[in-house]
């Protein structure tokens, strides 16, 4: 871990903290919520050993990167802008891309609007969902799962932060990372995160040190930066109208754990396995469903995920 270099790169008007190691073709790793570059710690080391330049930023709003104050600064266009600037700074013309959770959404959009900068994509957890011209995404989730659905509960600035603040940050991290409940997470206001039972003991793949690392960063930074991505979802929808109906024309491998809440959203399994995803991502080459694996697959099964990434990218 000491071999991982940490630098600060100025891009798109902000400073991004970037962890990187290795030399060779560049792979850019994009974390999700509530996560950090650290999510990819095992992949960074392994893929560097396999001859790649592995790069993992804290995305805007997270960790040691800048957090612009307004949620309007967290559209997918802003974040892709950060990453294009990052690649320019690092002298990388075309990159291998790996995404997870919100990082997967950003990765889909980077491939959509700047396919010229991406060689191939291994995306995890979150499928590409075509834009529904009549319904904004947050409204769609509310209609589907109700106003207690976590995405809806994350909307009001400050509200969920207050709830989080009443829970020990380590417990909160533990709860997020180790949940194996595939059902849509709904947190009634009366209960809140504070009202949830204590999480179980840590699984083998997440140590006390790991949890402490996350807890320290999120205690320092807060969760607002990360929550702003959710708060900018409807705005992103509005601003990405020019690409409605456009296919993603980058070679893709998609991986998801079968206990992931995203895989268990009604309709998603059919969408993935019966041609829906492929219609929008015509160069989707492989789909991997990891049995018995939850949301944070790159941490739960790091070697397998590394192998999947390596075997795919070595084709190019």
């Amino acid at each position, binding site marked *: 871990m000491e071999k991982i270099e940490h630098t600060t790169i100025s891009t*798109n*008007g902000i400073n991004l903290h970037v962890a990187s190691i290795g030399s060779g073709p560049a792979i850019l790793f994009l974390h999700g919520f509530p996560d950090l570059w650290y999510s990819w710690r095992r992949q960074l080391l392994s893929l560097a050993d396999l001859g790649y330049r592995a790069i993992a930023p804290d995305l805007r709003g997270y960790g040691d990167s800048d957090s612009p104050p307004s949620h309007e600064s967290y559209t997918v266009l802003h974040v892709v802008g950060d990453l294009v600037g990052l690649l320019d700074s690092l002298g990388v013309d075309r990159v291998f891309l790996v995404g997870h959770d919100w990082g997967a959404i950003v990765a889909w959009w980077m491939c959509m*609007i700047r396919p010229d900068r991406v060689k191939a994509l291994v995306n995890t957890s979150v499928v590409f969902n075509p834009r529904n011209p009549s319904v904004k995404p947050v409204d769609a989730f509310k209609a589907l799962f109700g106003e207690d659905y976590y995405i809806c509960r994350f909307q009001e600035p400050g509200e969920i932060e207050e709830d989080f603040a009443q829970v020990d940050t380590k417990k909160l991290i533990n709860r997020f990372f180790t949940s194996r409940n595939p059902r849509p997470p709904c947190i009634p206001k009366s209960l809140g995160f504070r009202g949830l039972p204590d999480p179980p003991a840590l699984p083998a793949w997440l140590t006390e040190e790991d949890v402490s690392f996350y807890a320290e960063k999120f205690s320092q930074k807060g969760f607002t930066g990360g929550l702003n991505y959710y708060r900018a979802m409807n705005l992103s929808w*509005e601003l990405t109208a*020019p690409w*409605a*109906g456009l296919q993603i024309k980058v070679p893709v491998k998609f991986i998801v754990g079968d206990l992931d809440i995203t895989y268990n959203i009604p309709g998603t399994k059919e969408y993935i396995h019966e041609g829906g995803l492929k219609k929008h991502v015509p160069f989707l080459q492989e789909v991997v469903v990891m049995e018995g694996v939850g949301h944070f697959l790159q941490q739960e099964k790091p070697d397998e995920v590394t192998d999947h990434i390596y075997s795919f990218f070595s084709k190019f």
Partner: protein
Amino acid sequence: MTSEVREKKIKTNGIWLNVAEKGDEGEPLVLLLHGFPETWFSWRHQIDFLSSHGYHVVAPDLRGYADSDSPPTHESYTVSHLVADVIGLLDHYGTAQAFVAGHDWGAIIGWSLCLFRPDRVKGFVSLSVPYSPRDPNLKPSDLFKSFGDGLYITQFQEPGRAEAAFAKHDCLTVMKKFLLTTRSDFWVAPPNTEIIDDLEVPSTLPDWITEEEIQVYADKFQKSGFTGPLNYYRAMDLKLQELEILAPWQGYKIVIPTKFIAGDKDIGNEGANGTIKYVKGEMFKSIVPNLEVVVIEDGHHFIQQEKSERVSQEILSFFNKLRNITE
């Protein structure tokens, strides 16, 4: 002359646009995008000319104008919205790739189309307004501030201000002040003066436009007002339109074949650092490498009306060349 132009309403990107059309639907599609403060009518000469030379010509009233919808808030007038409107039109016609020409704000939309959806553009002609890549270190609002409060863009920001200033004149006069301007500065009014009061109406009409033609515009704006058009400028003030949404295209080269046409007396061509110098310069060539530049002598801002035959020929020859058709 424009009697065979068909007008119809098309649903696109959640709104209805009024679209003027002429020519054989089987022919390649040319999309013409007007500027401020205009309508599809600004393209009347090109609509006739191009449709009689083998093109299916489509010219919308843009969002906020004339017989098209005008969403109420300026947040709905970013280049994202405007480009999505255009994509919706192309989808309606089933056009995979279009020839596009844009003037003024229509040119800004066209350049943005080249960034966002190069897959839908065969070739692009820009009249008057060049591509301005985003400079992350220079916000548009800071640049405009350097011109002072008299800059028309600054005066157009505050909701209601320009509308009230325009309303002191009848619509015909307002249109004459814009269409007939021969100013080539960046339209900065003296202190305590509204730009509409500073623009002058010449005592006689030039030979390229008639009173009846100006009345066509006046009638449309009388009905639809100027707020929709002004919202394009008000969306520039937003954080979003401070070009933050263009960040993904930082350093992007527009390699689509493009042609830039402007009058040597257009707005912004006064002085050593004018638009034409910028367009002919090394920096511009590095980001728009596949570019032709045509400067029309004695041409002013509303060039496709003032020098209609020349502009029509230049557009036709450019599109024909891309189709490997030589005259």
